[in-house]
């Protein structure tokens, strides 16, 4: 829905939002908002509301209770999970970009202006010269960048990403993180979901911890603490500090991980 009366800097708002699939409530009584210029990550266990909350914000899931919406005039740029993309589909990078633009002429040719705009955006994201490549011929980082470029092609007020580092290697994860940080520096607001606590969430300015309902909302230092993590994941977890940032150990307290020793040959 479109929120009509809202403060100038508000982009997205959820008010006592609940969503369910049949009898299974996956988002319960969630109230939070995203303001212009923010960089927010929604973290939590798989299957417990992150993607559903994002889909509700995008208007793809209808709430069973409460309100969710964007402020009137706010443009969303949505980047789906790379794992959901059919990489064998016969399209080039340029076609992926331009398909989002309305077809203003009868014949569906890509106009010179569209080609120029798309190439400028690709250049900006470090994809210059790749417009005529098939999407499968790109590296993991380049593939993710293409879909960010497509979302940015509409000059969105906020970029919405679903698990941007899911199914990608460490190098691609770094690339995505730096790209999003650069875009945020340029003034673009970002809202994403992630289950990657150390690789992505710990680097963000604000985290919303979701396990059907909001468990905590704050900076990584405030929310990535044992008490919150135990309530979030249902198991005690250790948190260390490294370089001024929290590092969550991905094993439960008490579990003993034996050091790896290569077998003697």
């Amino acid at each position, binding site marked *: 829905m479109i929120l009509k009366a809202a403060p100038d800097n508000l982009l997205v708002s959820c008010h006592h939002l609940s969503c369910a699939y049949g009898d299974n409530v996956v988002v319960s009584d969630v109230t939070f908002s995203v303001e212009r210029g923010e960089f927010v990550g929604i973290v939590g266990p798989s299957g417990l509301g992150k993607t559903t909350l994002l889909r509700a914000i995008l208007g793809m899931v209808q709430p069973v209770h409460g309100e969710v919406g964007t402020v009137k005039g706010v443009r969303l740029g949505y980047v789906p999970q790379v794992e959901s993309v059919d990489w064998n589909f*016969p399209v080039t990078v340029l*076609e992926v970009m331009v398909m989002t633009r309305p077809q203003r002429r009868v*014949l569906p040719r890509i106009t010179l202006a569209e080609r120029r705009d798309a190439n400028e955006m690709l250049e900006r994201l470090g994809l210059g010269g790749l417009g005529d490549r098939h999407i499968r011929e790109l590296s993991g980082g380049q593939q993710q960048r293409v879909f960010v470029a497509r979302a940015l092609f*509409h000059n969105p007020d906020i970029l919405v990403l679903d698990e941007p580092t899911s199914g990608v290697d460490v190098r691609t994860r770094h690339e995505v993180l730096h790209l999003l940080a650069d875009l945020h520096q340029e003034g673009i607001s970002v809202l994403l979901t992630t289950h990657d606590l150390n690789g992505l969430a710990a680097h963000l300015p604000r985290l919303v911890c979701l396990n059907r309902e909001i468990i905590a909302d704050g900076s990584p230092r405030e929310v990535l603490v044992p008490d919150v993590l135990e309530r979030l994941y249902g198991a005690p977890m250790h948190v260390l500090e490294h370089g001024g940032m929290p590092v969550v150990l991905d094993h439960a307290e008490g579990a003993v991980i034996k050091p790896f020793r290569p077998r003697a040959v």
Partner: protein
Amino acid sequence: MSVTPALAADLFEPYGFEFFRNGTVVAVAAGALCGLLGVFVVLRGMSYIGHGLSHAVFGGAAASAVMNFNYFIGAGLWGIVSGVLIGRIARRRILGADAAIGVVTTASFAVGLALLNRYGQAKRSIEAVLFGSVLGVKNGDIVAVVVVGLLAAAVIIVGYRRFLFSTFDPEVASVSGVRVSVMEAALMVMLSLTILVTMRVIGTLLISALLVIPAATARMLTNRFSSMLWLSPVIGASGAFLGMNLAYHTNTSAAAMIIIVCATAFSGVYFASGLRGKRRIAALGHL
């Protein structure tokens, strides 16, 4: 090497017959039309839909014949309703598209069969619908195929980007303001109309092959959606033209020969296109 006059006379002999000229025109138009719509069928992983919808239309054709109702209107409405129903059931994700097609279309086919057995001149009607009769086409059939072909081409050209977006990435298309369900319904209606007007040419049993083979062959030849949209109709039309001529000279079924020619082209491209082409075809999950 020059073609001898005797050979040329042999090759052109069938064109002396009006039924063959009409049959060739309608077969070429049907091949191009099925090739065009087949691109969406193949890329959406719904190759079974042609098979299913043709069976559904059979039910409508039978009901129309029994009730002395106009074939195009009766079978057409029946096919369109079946197509939209399949789309709806599949989108609710309780059943996969293949299961939805199986349920709706086999039930429709069974109804048609029962109606013809009980009330109709069963054998003749069933054979005509199942195997097609390209050499018995009338002017009305030619007009129907050409009109639906032009209509489908116009709709796809005008809605090109929305069709591409909703086929490639329906979720993001929906968020971006494309009415995905409308695009899907439009495709289903065009597909139902295509099957309706080409069924009397190719027949229920072989029409799904004409929807799938040219598009799958085109997919191996190109990595561009826009190129597939002209390559696939060209392959379908060429296969129909060659198939018609070969059928005349070998005295075999025209519909069967059209499919054999298309399948031969598919095999040739499959073996000639190397690993890259085979990967592309392997990626078409539901073929």
